[in-house]
């Protein structure tokens, strides 16, 4: 396998993810309607909107996990770092390797902490490249980056599913790091966590900012304001407004956005 993913073909302009006229149907139900947007590279962009408006659906288009369901149909274009991910020469494996995803409920694999972190390496690198020292380094670096190394370094062999939720979610972020993704997608990553856990994940997002293009779905308006550079407001499968977070919250252009951020519906 060649690692000719987006990274090689990247020009350094500021666009991370671009969609054009993206539509998606679950069977007969159209969940995304002509979504055209451009998410900036290296920043944190939040996706907000009332329940059922298609935030998760949009996010899951970016790494094409929606295609697991046979009844999903997509039209339009998604470019990630310049490369159309629906091109026939795109390999799903490479695409998903370069686009990490964090889920709403922390879902560490039913393996040890150590194996969770090196999972990406194990599936993407030939076994001959995976010496013990290399794996150990990867684990230390990834756990270090999410601030779990000191807490977990003595129990790397214990099952990841036994950690506290907050640690599980951090681990789910850490396991993306060894394969060096360019984009991290997060679907309400804090909704299962308490206030402390939420704050910890937000801090972590800020520390990752710049190196990764981060897209985060959130129901929590305050979180979007605190933790994102830009915000996208969606309604009924359409993009209503996409601006810098401050602007979107302080002087929204669209009436519907204004009503939503004031909490009139949602």
């Amino acid at each position: 396998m060649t690692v000719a993913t987006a990274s090689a073909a990247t020009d350094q302009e500021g666009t991370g993810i671009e969609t054009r006229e993206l539509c998606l149907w679950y069977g007969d139900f159209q969940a995304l309607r002509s979504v055209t947007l451009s998410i900036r590279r290296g920043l944190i962009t939040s996706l907000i909107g009332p329940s059922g408006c298609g935030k998760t659906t949009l996010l899951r288009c970016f790494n094409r996990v929606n295609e697991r369901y046979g009844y999903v149909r997509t039209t339009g274009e998604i470019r990630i770092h310049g490369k159309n991910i629906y091109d026939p020469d795109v390999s799903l494996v490479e695409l998903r390797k370069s686009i990490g995803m964090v889920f709403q409920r922390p879902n560490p694999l039913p393996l040890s902490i150590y194996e969770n972190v090196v999972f990406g390496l194990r599936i993407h690198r030939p076994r001959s490249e995976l010496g013990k020292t290399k794996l150990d380094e990867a684990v230390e670096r990834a756990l270090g980056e999410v601030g779990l190394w000191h807490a977990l370094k003595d129990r790397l062999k214990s099952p990841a599913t036994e950690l506290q939720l907050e640690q599980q979610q951090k681990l789910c972020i850490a396991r993306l790091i060894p394969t060096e993704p360019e984009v991290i997608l997060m679907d309400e990553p804090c909704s299962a966590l308490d206030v402390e856990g939420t704050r910890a994940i937000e801090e972590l997002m800020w520390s990752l900012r710049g190196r990764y293009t981060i897209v985060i779905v959130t129901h929590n308006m305050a979180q979007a304001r605190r933790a994102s550079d830009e915000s996208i407001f969606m309604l009924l499968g359409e993009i209503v407004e996409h601006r810098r977070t401050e602007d979107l919250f302080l002087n929204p252009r669209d009436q519907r956005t204004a009503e939503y951020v004031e909490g009139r519906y949602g």
Partner: protein
Amino acid sequence: MNLPPAPVAGTRPLSVSTGSPRGPRRSRAAVLGESVLEWVIRLCGISAILFVFGIFFFVLREGVGFLFGGLKLGEFFFSTEWYPTSLSNVRYGVLALIVGTFSVTGLAMLIAVPFGLGAAIFVSEFCSDRWREGLKILIELLAAIPSVVWGFIGISVMNPLIQEVFHVPVGLNVLNGALLLALMSVPIMVSIGEDALKAVPDSFREASLAMGATRWQTVRRVLLPAAKNGLLAAILLGVGRAVGETMAVLMATGHAVNIPKSPFDPVRTLTATIAAELGEASVGSPHYQVLFIIGILLFTITFAVNLVADLVVKGTAKG
């Protein structure tokens, strides 16, 4: 029992009090009916226990006299000489029968485990919905074939086939029995194995796929470790099925008391021996009692296998 308190004979008509939001008041008949039903269900549950112990007790009673008076346990377990009807020198060594049972079962498992688990993985992870339903029906059909019919197939299909393919004089042997047992235990492995895989939360699959794993990598690295207890239980239940199977192996293995040196040697199993000889042994005779002792041995083996399978499944629930 924790039935709700009997309804107070009411100042209000019963029909009203049934649906009354005030409290759990129901007609006397309904309460009585429910408690009767509860007892019937309870009896059904208890009867299962009674049957198991009843059978065990019966088998034990028929054999126990000889077990403690007359049977030489050393000869029983370690001699291959099975001459229960010899006039001059009666010998009851079942070693060859034990080896027969285990060789047929072992070979059957070597064949059935890869097939059964492979099919379980295919059905649960790689199949489209329409195919899955069809396959499951087919597999259940396989489970419904009576074992005599399998024996038939062993004699009329497998026997010439084995002679032809392996150039051996007789096709009624360990291999034949093992193939039949494999076919018979695959269905149970597939259905239990598929349940075990289905029980793995979908979030694990999504996590793995979203990291870029292929479906096969997901199976190997995530699903198999996650479902390993359930899959082990599937295998053990298949083993239990194979150990206890009688008619097909009786017909297909050649019926010779013999320690096999290759898969092409005929053998005889514990089960086949009981089935073949019990009718001819006179009730209460030592021969008759020894057959019951063999029954106890079989019972113990399958009980142990099933118990382990059960404990393994409980392990899943905990983990």
